[in-house]
């Protein structure tokens, strides 16, 4: 406060110092701006022109309200130049000399002198406002000033002395004043001083102290000054800060030393003499002792914010505990709010215990029962239940048992694991052997046992051969066979097969140990088998082989005999023994020679037979059109034979001979070969049923329409059979040819019986009884094809007639079974090869005939045409301008140029577009297929127009609908699971709000998860066990199954 006063005086001094400057200024009168506006303006100005303001303020102080527009120079006549920029430190042209030392202004003393005037002014104000007088120390002079008001008040006082207008704006006035020297400092002062609490008198203290304090303040001020922005720098710091002792009225805001901090003590010390001071001090002391100084409450907004934050945390904690429950409920496929009926069935004992006789009859009955002791008391029931309890020992025993079992299991487990790890093959083989039977291995080693076993086996074999015990001779087997083996009686069939197997095993001859010979033999057998299969039927071959073998053996023996040494020592070296040996050897030799001779003779015989067979084969080649065919290796091996001309046909061949070799490598013959092979197993002697019918084959076929032309044509089938019969039973010369051979009945003639009924009669005339093949063929062609094709065909007819000549061989070919299979590729090849049609009639097959028949039908071209039309329809070439009338047609030159370029370009674009569209079609590049890609509008209504909501991709949606949900496609349980609604609720069930349970929260969840894992582990282990014990396996699975079904049903 004192400081302020001093400042004021200082201002006044200034004023007084330059009276000429301001006094000349006139008091402005007339219209003026409102006060607030002034103030605003002023505020602005003093920021801009801080120096000018000083003077202004002074003016203000003296002259009250004036126009204070600082934009204008305060006095137009007296222009005070601002400091030159070069002088200021701003542009740093000179060395910056900062003097932070506080220097008292030179005219300090003058201030003092002028004090009086200022004091006078003040005094006036003081007198006006209040009568209170207080001593106020002022510097060293201890000038007492009466002061009651705050700093603001002082200003107010000053201003109000001139005008009352400013009464309400003391604060602002003060600010104005403060701006004269230093804003910040003033503000700090203001803070301190404006507190009304400090409005008390304080005695001034010593001067030394003051000096010290003063210094500090100045320093602080300088520090503040440094912080100021550059633009706001003061030209001079003409600040005087006094150093009053600390008091409630003059508090040191900065604190400084702890010694100089204001304490409560300091504050209450002035109250020492007032009544009640003691109690106050006591309370203060107590407070200090406790050391709990309550902080000032935070601002309301901050408090609220903190409150909210804390509340949020609390509630989020509260809510987050529900999170798991909510999540689970959300994820649950179905929420169930149904009443669960109490299904715990009451036992009879329980019911009996609860029973209380009510009616008289019941009571009577009860009495009677009780009398006779027939009623079990409830206590009895309870005791019965009590019996179920286990004693401690029992429990222990059980536990031990279980533990033992468990340990055993684990032991076995470990063992199995170890065994499984062993990778050695030999080990496993040995293990397997040992499992099969430990004795076997020993048997193999021990010759004695081996022998015994062999004898045993031989005996068994003999027994089996005698009794035929296992050859379905039993009553049971006979019965089964009689009844017929059916698919359903798998068991019995298997048993029968088993018996046969045992029989076979028992009666099997015990082969020599020499594997090589047996394998050779078997291979030889196979060879002969295949030979016979292929119709080569050379029984002599194995025989010769055996003979050769025997020969070799005997020769060996002979050689061995010759070279054999006579033992020189031991028993055998005795003379009589050697003689005996020699004799025996000679005998053997002679015998061997005899055998050898015999063998050679036999061999010669065989060779003869072979020769005969060979001749036969050659003869069989001649009728190339029938009989068995050869393919593959065999076909390759014999081609040379084909060239040889057959001499004669041997009559009375065996069936094998009838199906003699025919070497053909042309595909169609292969086909026939297939069919002929299929026929082969058939008994030749057996007469085909249709063959029997053959004799009456002239009788009309039942088909009504067919009947007409039937007299002329012999039933193809019949002819086929006839041919076959003839082949088999009545061999005839291959060169027999004649018109009486069944007409060229083409099998495919019979196909369209139904299809040609209309047209057949028309063509009937062309078919004559006498005509041979060609005419019939042509007729059939006529019949088969549509009129357009027929027209085309007519041209070709002549050719075909020429080329087809009736031939016995051809007939024979047709005799073969007709449905034969072959690689389609081969057929395709044949389709492609045009020259085939030019082949001679002898080699012409059925297939070719058919090809010939449909040769005129260019079906593929027709189809292509059709496809092109359809594509034109489905993928039209867009509309384009072909020509504009009159455009480009005026001159010949234009006409020659053709349509303009842009039209051509447009057309080209359209064409390309169409080609692109065509290339995207499914049937693009498929020459034989045409797939319509028109949209099926009627079907489209069963399709979803767009993706349903939660889905974002078509693939996922279509995957999700891939399995039908219907009852027909799922089990009952599955169906019900699949269609169960999200919420199941029974009528009348009240849905309670969810209750919070610890077990359901996360901890509970984790517990549950643990349990689950444990369960899984358990089940896994049990499975493992099950795998190990095969016997229990089926039982368990059955049981499970039953349970499952029960559940499901």
């Amino acid at each position, binding site marked *: 406060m004192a400081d302020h006063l001093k400042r004021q005086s200082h201002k006044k001094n200034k004023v007084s110092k330059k009276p000429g400057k301001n006094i000349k200024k006139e008091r402005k009168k007339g219209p003026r701006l409102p006060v607030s506006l002034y103030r605003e303006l002023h505020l602005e100005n003093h920021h801009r022109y801080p120096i000018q303001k000083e003077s202004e303020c002074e003016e203000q102080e003296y002259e009250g309200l004036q126009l204070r527009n600082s934009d204008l120079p305060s006095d137009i006549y007296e222009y005070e130049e601002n400091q030159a920029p070069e002088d200021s430190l701003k542009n740093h042209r000179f060395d910056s000399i900062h003097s932070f030392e506080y220097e008292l202004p030179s005219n300090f003393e003058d201030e003092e002198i002028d004090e009086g005037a200022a004091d006078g002014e003040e005094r006036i104000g003081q007198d006006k406002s209040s009568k209170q007088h207080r001593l106020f120390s002022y510097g060293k002079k201890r000038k007492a000033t009466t002061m009651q008001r705050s700093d603001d008040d002082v200003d107010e006082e000053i201003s109000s002395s001139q005008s009352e207008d400013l009464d309400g704006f003391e604060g602002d006035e003060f600010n104005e004043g403060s701006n004269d020297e230093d804003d910040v400092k003033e503000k700090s002062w203001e803070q301190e001083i404006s507190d009304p609490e400090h409005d008390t008198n304080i005695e001034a203290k010593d001067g030394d102290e003051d000096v010290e304090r003063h210094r500090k303040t100045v320093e602080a001020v300088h520090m503040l000054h440094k912080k100021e922005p550059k633009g706001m720098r003061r030209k001079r710091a003409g600040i005087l800060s006094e150093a009053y002792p600390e008091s409630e009225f003059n508090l040191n805001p900065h604190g400084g030393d702890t010694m100089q901090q204001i304490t409560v003590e300091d504050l209450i010390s002035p109250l020492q003499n007032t009544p009640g001071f003691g109690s106050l001090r006591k309370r203060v002391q107590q407070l200090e002792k406790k050391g709990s100084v309550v902080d000032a409450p935070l601002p309301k907004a901050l408090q609220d914010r903190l409150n909210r934050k804390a509340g949020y945390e609390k509630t989020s904690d509260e809510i987050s505990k529900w999170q798991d429950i909510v999540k689970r409920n959300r994820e649950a496929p179905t929420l169930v709010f149904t009443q669960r009926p109490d299904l715990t069935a009451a036992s009879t004992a329980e019911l009996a215990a609860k029973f209380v006789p009510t009616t008289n009859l019941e009571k009577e009955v009860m009495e009677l029962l009780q009398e006779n002791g027939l009623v079990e008391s409830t206590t009895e029931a309870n005791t019965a239940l009590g019996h179920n309890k286990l004693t401690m020992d029992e429990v222990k025993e059980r536990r031990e048992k279980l533990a033992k079992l468990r340990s055993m299991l684990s032991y076995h487990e470990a063992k199995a694991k170890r065994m499984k790890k062993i990778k050695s093959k030999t080990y496993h083989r040995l293990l397997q052997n040992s499992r099969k039977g430990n004795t076997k291995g020993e048997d193999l080693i021990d010759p004695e046992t081996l022998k015994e076993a062999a004898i045993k086996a031989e005996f068994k074999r003999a027994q089996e051969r005698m009794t035929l015990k296992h050859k379905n001779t039993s009553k049971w087997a006979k019965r089964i066979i009689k009844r017929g083996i059916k698919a359903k009686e798998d068991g019995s069939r298997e048993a029968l097969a088993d018996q046969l197997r045992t029989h076979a095993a028992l009666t099997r001859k015990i082969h020599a140990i020499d594997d090589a010979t047996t394998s050779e033999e078997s291979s030889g057998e196979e060879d002969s088998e295949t030979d016979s299969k292929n119709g080569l039927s050379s029984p002599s071959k194995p025989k010769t082989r055996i003979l050769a073998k025997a020969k070799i053996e005997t020769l060996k023996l002979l050689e061995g005999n010759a070279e054999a040494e006579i033992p020189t020592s031991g028993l055998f070296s005795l003379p009589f023994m050697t003689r005996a040996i020699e004799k025996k050897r000679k005998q053997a030799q002679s015998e061997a020679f005899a055998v050898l001779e015999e063998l050679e003779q036999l061999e010669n015989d065989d060779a003869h037979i072979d020769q005969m067979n060979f001749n036969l084969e050659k003869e069989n080649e001649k009728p190339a059109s029938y009989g068995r065919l050869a393919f593959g290796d065999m076909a390759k091996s014999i081609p040379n034979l084909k060239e040889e001309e057959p001499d004669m046909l041997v009559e009375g061949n065996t069936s094998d001979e009838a199906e003699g070799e025919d070497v053909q490598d042309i595909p169609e013959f292969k086909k026939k070969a297939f069919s002929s092979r299929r026929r082969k197993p058939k008994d030749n002697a057996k007469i085909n049923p249709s063959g029997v019918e053959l004799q009456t084959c002239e009788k009309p076929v039942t088909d009504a329409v067919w009947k007409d032309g039937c007299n002329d044509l012999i039933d193809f089938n019949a002819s086929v059979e006839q041919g076959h019969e003839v082949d088999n039973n009545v061999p005839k010369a291959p060169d027999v040819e004649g018109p009486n051979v069944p007409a060229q009945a083409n099998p495919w003639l019979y196909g369209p019986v139904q299809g040609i009924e209309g047209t057949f009669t028309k063509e009937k005339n062309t078919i004559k009884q006498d005509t041979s093949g060609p005419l019939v063929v042509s007729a059939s062609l006529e019949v088969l094809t549509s009129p357009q094709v027929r027209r085309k065909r007519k041209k070709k007819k002549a050719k075909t007639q020429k080329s087809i000549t009736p031939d016995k061989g051809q007939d024979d070919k047709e005799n073969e079974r007709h449905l034969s299979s072959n690689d389609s590729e081969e057929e395709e090849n044949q389709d492609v090869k045009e020259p085939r049609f030019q082949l001679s009639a002898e080699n012409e097959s059925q297939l070719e005939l058919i090809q010939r028949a449909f040769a005129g039908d260019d079906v593929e071209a027709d189809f292509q045409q059709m496809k092109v039309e359809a594509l034109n329809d489905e993928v039209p070439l867009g509309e384009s301008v072909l020509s504009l009338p009159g455009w480009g047609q005026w001159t010949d030159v234009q006409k020659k140029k053709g349509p303009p370029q842009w039209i051509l370009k447009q057309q080209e674009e359209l064409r390309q577009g169409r080609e692109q569209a065509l290339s995207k079609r499914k049937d693009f590049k498929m020459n034989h297929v045409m797939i319509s890609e028109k949209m099926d*509008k009627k079907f489209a209504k069963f399709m979803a127009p767009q993706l349903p909501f939660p889905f974002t991709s078509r693939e996922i949606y279509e995957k999700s609908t891939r399995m039908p949900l219907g009852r027909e496609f799922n089990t009952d349980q599955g169906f019900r699971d699949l269609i169960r609604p999200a919420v199941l609720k029974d009528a009348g069930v009240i849905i309670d709000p969810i209750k919070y349970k610890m077990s359901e929260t996360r901890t509970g969840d984790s517990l549950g998860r643990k349990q689950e894992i444990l369960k899984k582990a358990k089940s896994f282990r049990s499975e493992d066990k099950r795998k190990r014990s095969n016997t229990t396996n089926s039982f368990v699975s059955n049981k499970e199954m039953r349970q499952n079904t029960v559940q499901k049903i």
Partner: protein
Amino acid sequence: MLHQSVATLEVHFPTVPLIQFPMDLHDKKLRGKLQYGEKLINQSAKAAAKFEQWLLPSEAGYLEPEGLEQTKNFSQEAIVSNVDISSARKAFDIQLPALGPYTLDFSPSGRYLVFGGRRGHLATIDWKSTHLVSELQVAETTRDVKFLHNELFFAAAQKKYVYIYDKKGTEIHCLKEHTFPLKLEFLPHHFLLVSVDKFGSLRYQDTSTGLMVAQHRTHLGRCSVLRMNPYNAVVGLGHNNGSVTMWSPNMSKPLVTLLCHHGPVTAVAFESQGQQMITAGMDGKVKVFDLRKYVALHAYFSKSPAKSLDISQQGLLAVGEGSNIEIWRDALTSKQYKPYMTHHLPKGWQISNLLFCPYEDTMGIGHSGGLSSILVPGSGEANFDTFVANPFETVKQRQEAEVHLLLDKLQPEMIALDPKQIGSIRREPKEHSQMKSQQALEANRAAAIMAGKLVVVRHKKKGRDKPTKRQKRKQNNIITAKRPLIEAQIHSKSSLKKAKISDQTLPLALRRFA
């Protein structure tokens, strides 16, 4: 139906693994749902597989040769002599040589048989007991007979029209739209009677409502080969130009046209799963087609063209030509080189029709001498599902089944090549979508103009309310209404252009800066 589904599940179970829905399916809820669904499906399939052993006790067996024997050489006499009496009784011949070649059809359960002679002899018999149910002479050419949804009704393709008779042989309907029918087929799930006529017209008639569903002209001439694909109810026709066409009632053009043979097609048969088709042609070939790729898998060559084809429930293929029948096993999946069984009709009787009996190991043959039935071990499905077909059905059961059939009836529009497309997302051709957007745009424009016109033009003070000015204002209203549309169009165009430019000119790495 359960067991059938189980059967299919059995087939598909290993091929339907649990789908792992991609993790980039960001919608957690949806993913969870789908995964749960997958789990259920998996469980369901497993459970169904478990049920199998309870519900499908019987196994199909085939002829088994011993040693050098071959099954194709087994004669019917041998087979008959080796089977039980009840089975042996199923092999028989009915000799009716006078009324000439017979066609036949089995009821869905395989218990009843209807047959019709070319000369108008129609009869139904109880197949198992060989008890004659009804017999009648219509005294006109009868080309085909067909049972409807059960044994109570059958249709006959007679000389001029298709007639429907009931069990007793009473004529119920004369379908005069079906003129000169040659072949009949019945689609049981759709209740559609299909006929093809002398002029190559295909007709669909709903037998439950009596409405004519569709009439298509094939433009391929006379057609007497008609067969249904049991998988998708698409009908296959065999034509004289060697092509097979597949039809649905929805489309007036064939869905697929396959060029199968060089000569006329004589017979067509479809496998029950709809994956393979067999055709026989006058060129003497029997071809197996894969219907997924429309390519011929392999071909068999028959010397005389096969007249009739059929595939049994267990996948045996029967080929009838002339008086011979060959039955092939596994002939569809891979090429076989010898038939499983062969049979020759006595007396040179010509086969006109052959059909495997459902749920029985027998085959019915209609031929020129009457009817024959032969035993074909392993041809029929061993386990029947009473929800699908019950050979031992009582009257009550039949009545209930009929109601169920009607309730489960499928609409004729649902016939398409891929029935699994039902419920999938519609993929419209570009033109369709373009047209639609164009239409929408135009509609919006028209609406905008209308709205602009409807804005009331207020009267203004004098001098400003001249007719010209009023007119101008009206025009202005319309322009302002149209403006946003036009702007949007321009914007979209420019953005398209921009996109194009950025796509074309900039290198890939720089496109994101465009």
